[in-house]
């Protein structure tokens, strides 16, 4: 359902609350419910790539790395400036043993977010992990 068709228009705070609730659900290992929540959030928000990243993290938590890569790639297509999406994409690529592509995605994330506040730090930490040969 398109955003314009929704009878209820949640405020920014309510959207944040829904995102946080979905993330908590995911962290509580209620993965299917969390996925349903993220899917429900997509039509509510302008930054649709963010709940898509959430769906990707659920696939990642289930060990479905190829599906996770697909979701994170979709997120980078929607917003090519989102370092969080590239950091997650790099991690999922590394776990699916595409180490060269992973390194490129992580590098992109650190370039997009040099301060590290929006995914850059996550990318740097994973890069360090990879450099130790731990994956």
């Amino acid at each position: 359902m398109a955003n314009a068709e929704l009878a209820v228009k949640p405020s920014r705070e309510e959207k944040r609350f829904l995102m946080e609730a979905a993330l908590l659900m995911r962290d509580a290992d209620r993965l299917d419910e969390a996925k349903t929540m993220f899917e429900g959030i997509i039509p509510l928000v302008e930054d649709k790539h963010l709940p898509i990243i959430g769906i990707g993290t659920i696939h990642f938590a289930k060990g479905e790395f190829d599906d996770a890569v697909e979701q994170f790639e979709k997120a980078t297509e929607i917003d090519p400036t989102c370092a969080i999406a590239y950091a997650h994409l790099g991690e999922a690529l590394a776990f699916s043993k595409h180490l060269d592509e992973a390194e490129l995605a992580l590098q992109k994330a650190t370039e997009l977010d040099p301060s590290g506040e929006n995914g850059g730090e996550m990318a740097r930490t994973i890069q360090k992990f990879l450099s130790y040969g731990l994956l």
Partner: protein
Amino acid sequence: MSIGGVGGGNFNPADLTKFDPPKQSKFSKFTSILGGAASAIPGVGSALGAIGAVAGGGAAGASTSFNRQYELLQLQNQIQQEAQTINMISNINKAKHEASMAAIRNVK
């Protein structure tokens, strides 16, 4: 056939089985264990181990002490590597959590 140092008389291979290695004294055992336990502290373990080896007065004592220290060093390395891995995983989890929080902050 005479071989110097082994009996001094005729050499009999069967004599080798009668060879009795020097026994570790109680003090040597104590310092060996002490050296091993203290090897967790850099420098102290090897120093105590060396004292143990000298005080034990026998090659067997030194060898036992060395083997023990080697095993403990290996264990120490393994523990350090595991701690480093756990630390890195913890850092990744923290960074991922912060990225998630950033995603929440950015929702419009």
